[in-house]
């Protein structure tokens, strides 16, 4: 496959994933910050501030999870390599 097409696919995938993350974030923060009492159409100041903080935290969690996943999958690769080497020499 030509590298340009690969790059295009990677970019599309990234956009899809960002959109997916955004949707999940919206849902999660709405649940945490906007109580289901629909008397008034306006958001209170507290709710607004909560939403701001929620977004900040969600993005940080996203970053943290990414690092943790890479860390854990690297550990797995190491383990797998060692297992393969072990069975190879055994």
């Amino acid at each position, binding site marked *: 496959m030509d590298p340009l097409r690969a790059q295009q696919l990677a970019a599309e995938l990234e956009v899809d994933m960002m959109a997916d*993350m955004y949707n999940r974030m919206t849902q999660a923060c709405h649940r945490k910050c906007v109580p289901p009492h629909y008397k008034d159409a306006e958001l209170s100041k507290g709710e607004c501030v909560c939403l701001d903080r929620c977004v900040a935290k*969600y993005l940080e969690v996203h970053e943290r999870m990414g690092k943790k996943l890479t860390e854990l999958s690297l550990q797995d690769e190491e383990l797998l390599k060692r297992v393969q080497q072990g069975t190879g020499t055994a």
Partner: protein
Amino acid sequence: QPQSHAPQLRDFLLVYNRMTELCFRHCVCNLNYRLLTTREESCLDACAGRLVRANHRLMGSYVGLMPAIIQRRSTYYEDSTA
């Protein structure tokens, strides 16, 4: 090569997003601050570790059980069409 890995990469990234959502929902309760508290951070680390290990275990069990099921299914169809 990237093309052959694309569906797996997509699945992996979806798992990543789901993990983020799940662990956020469970661990982040204190919206008085913009930064994560130490308690939240340790909860998130634990959550990530658990989810990954649970996933591995699940995969192991699935891979162990599926061949038998596929075999049964194929013999069933062979018998019914014969």
